[in-house]
């Protein structure tokens, strides 16, 4: 398959691993920001191919993981209202709130629909004008433009029964929060290629400069990630700290300006709570006052603070790159994808869930080498 197979080519992978080995002289700690990258790293075993001196820390870029419990609870409360048609991306349905998840609400007979695009939810609102239709708008800057487009269309089509429960997050403030942490280990970043496809990477340049960290905009295939690591390590070894673009087949420096315009038209930045990490200023998006009529929290009431994670859960430390999943005593025993204790186990792209799924028994895996 074009644009896929060439980035999973075993020979090319080996030559990049060799090149990384050749340039690496000291131990380095690099964080991949996006959950999609974490998933690929663990799924393909990319980290195991790297020199032992390079540690990949897994970042906070899993939108499902970081959606605060109080928003999940609010989604569940809205979805359980009579007549409501609640629309969500598939992977949010299984995320546990305080008491249950959206799939359980669906099992209770409520109308919960898995959609592939917010525009599907708009169509549902047009098809059922007498029913309140609510879309759960979750995600990073990647999903925000399509959600903004849905709001614009809802206004254009006068769909007064449509509203959106917004829990959007932005990458750069979270990276700064990680860099500001007193015990930070991260020395360089692989930035999220899809987020940068939308946003470009100018907003990362001041971060690289201020914190003296290299940032490499990186894709999601094995070769992308290895090339990203190579570029990052090369900067680290040379004492440089600039923003480079590995994912140039998708990302331009200025990004997708049309998508950015739509986002700015509909959303404005706001403080945002991250599951496992707490509130980070400027790290969220909320509907502008001009579009407040589409705000589900205005129609169904504001989300109420929920109890934080189990105190046993290390997801905050894992999301910020100061702990690995296996360092958690609850990992794989009291905390599993069926019964998660916190953020990083709730979604398939969370670091703990990826380790659980692909890495649970490292000793036994090693035996399979022959």
């Amino acid at each position, binding site marked *: *398959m074009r644009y*896929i197979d060439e980035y*999973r*080519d*075993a020979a090319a*992978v*080996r030559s990049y691993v060799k090149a990384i080995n050749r340039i690496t002289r000291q131990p380095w700690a690099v964080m991949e920001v996006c959950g*999609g990258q974490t998933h690929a790293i*663990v*799924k*393909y*075993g*990319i980290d*195991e*191919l790297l020199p032992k001196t390079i540690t990949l820390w897994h970042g906070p870029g899993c*939108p*499902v993981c970081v959606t605060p419990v109080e928003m999940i609870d609010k989604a569940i409360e809205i979805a359980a209202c009579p007549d409501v048609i609640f629309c969500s*991306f*598939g*992977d*949010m*349905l*299984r995320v546990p709130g305080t008491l249950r998840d959206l*799939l*359980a609400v*669906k*099992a*209770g007979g409520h109308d919960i629909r*898995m959609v*592939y695009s917010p525009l599907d939810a708009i169509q549902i609102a047009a098809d059922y004008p007498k029913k309140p239709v609510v879309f759960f708008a*979750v*995600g*990073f800057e*990647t*999903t925000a433009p399509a959600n903004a487009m849905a709001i614009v269309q809802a206004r254009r089509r006068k769909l007064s029964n449509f509203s959106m429960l917004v829990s959007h997050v932005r990458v750069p403030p979270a990276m700064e929060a990680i860099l500001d942490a007193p015990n930070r280990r991260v020395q360089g970043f692989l930035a999220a290629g*899809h987020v940068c496809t939308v946003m470009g990477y100018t907003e990362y340049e001041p971060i690289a400069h201020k914190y003296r960290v290299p940032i490499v905009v990186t894709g999601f295939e*094995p070769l992308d990630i290895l090339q990203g690591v190579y570029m990052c390590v090369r900067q680290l070894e040379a004492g440089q700290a600039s923003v480079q673009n590995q994912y140039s087949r998708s990302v331009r420096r200025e990004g997708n300006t049309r998508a950015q315009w739509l986002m700015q038209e509909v959303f404005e930045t706001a403080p945002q709570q991250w599951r496992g990490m707490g509130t980070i200023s400027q790290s969220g998006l909320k509907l502008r006052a001009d579009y407040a009529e589409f705000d589900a929290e205005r129609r169904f009431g504001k989300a109420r603070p929920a109890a934080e994670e189990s105190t046993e859960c290390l997801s905050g430390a894992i999301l910020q790159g100061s702990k690995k999943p296996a360092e958690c005593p609850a990992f794989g025993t009291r905390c599993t*994808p*069926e*019964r998660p204790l916190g953020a990083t186990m709730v979604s*398939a*792209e969370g670091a703990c869930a990826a380790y*659980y*799924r*692909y*890495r*649970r*028994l490292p000793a*036994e*895996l090693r*035996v*399979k*080498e022959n």
Partner: protein
Amino acid sequence: MALPPNFDRNCSTLIADYPQILMAHGGGGRLMHELLEKMILPAFGNSMLYARHDGALLDFGEEASGRRTRLAFTTDSYVVSPLFFPGGDLGALAVYGTVNDLAMCGARPLYLSVGFIIEEGLLMETLGRVIRSMQVAAGRANVQIITGDTKVVDKGKGDGLFINTAGIGAVASEQAIAPASLETGDVILLNGDVGRHGMAIMAAREGLAFENVIESDCDCVADLVLALLAAGVRVHCLRDLTRGGLATALNEIAETARLAMALVESAIPIREDVRGACEILGFDPLYVACEGRFVAFVPPQDAERALAIMRSHPLGAMACDVGRVTGPSSHGLVTLKTQIGGYRIVDMLSGEQLPRIC
């Protein structure tokens, strides 16, 4: 018969964890197995059920004439939506699915029963099309439908049409074909590309338009299995890949047999269009449903011959060796050598795969 002592306890922990049935309880993954293990198996527990195979083997012993009668018996319910999809329909599935389960017991499928649960208002023409399709499928699979039942439920209480079929077949081989017969070193053979049925249904159900129309692989594999047995290939175990796909089928067998398996990703055939659709939705094709695919576990000495037989059959033209049974493992670990040379676990999922956000 008294219930096993732990029935109530297991059952009540299950009820406490999941007060209601979720879709995942039928998804072929971890939650479905929990339901089987905590509620269904303990309630009906007997050695035939605990063998956890695709069907039960009924041994009627040796008659005075010296003839030994062994039958395989299985049942399955079919609830697919939409009723018609590229490459098949509910009727064909209901015949092939049960026939394939019999074949996985090493049996020649003979007779089926059919139960229709029809929702009030279903178009008579639709029912006619499904039944004609069953007629054609039964002819191809060389089975007779010899008994049945029809029920109509109120509008809104069924999804158009549900079909249950049960089947009986004559065991065609003296070999014990079951997870318990697996041996370390066994070669895992697969009769073709995976993931087509699941993606065909997904595309039809959700109205997803991919570049090509993906057709289901829905078909009867009994003839191919019987050819292997007739040629005297030692077959230790067979399993057809249905919901949950290749990964789930292997996990089930590995768990039952308490053996580890190692797969090679690059050896597993997946069509370009299926891979593309999976990439877009964030699905792992190893977990996507098939309806005309099976794995055969054979000792290494027989693997080459078995592959040659499979490849000479239209339903095994793309047959390949995808991995090995590697040795004892208390929880039946399945691992995979990735395309780029790394290693990972291929676990059983909780429930069904859900499309991801980004």
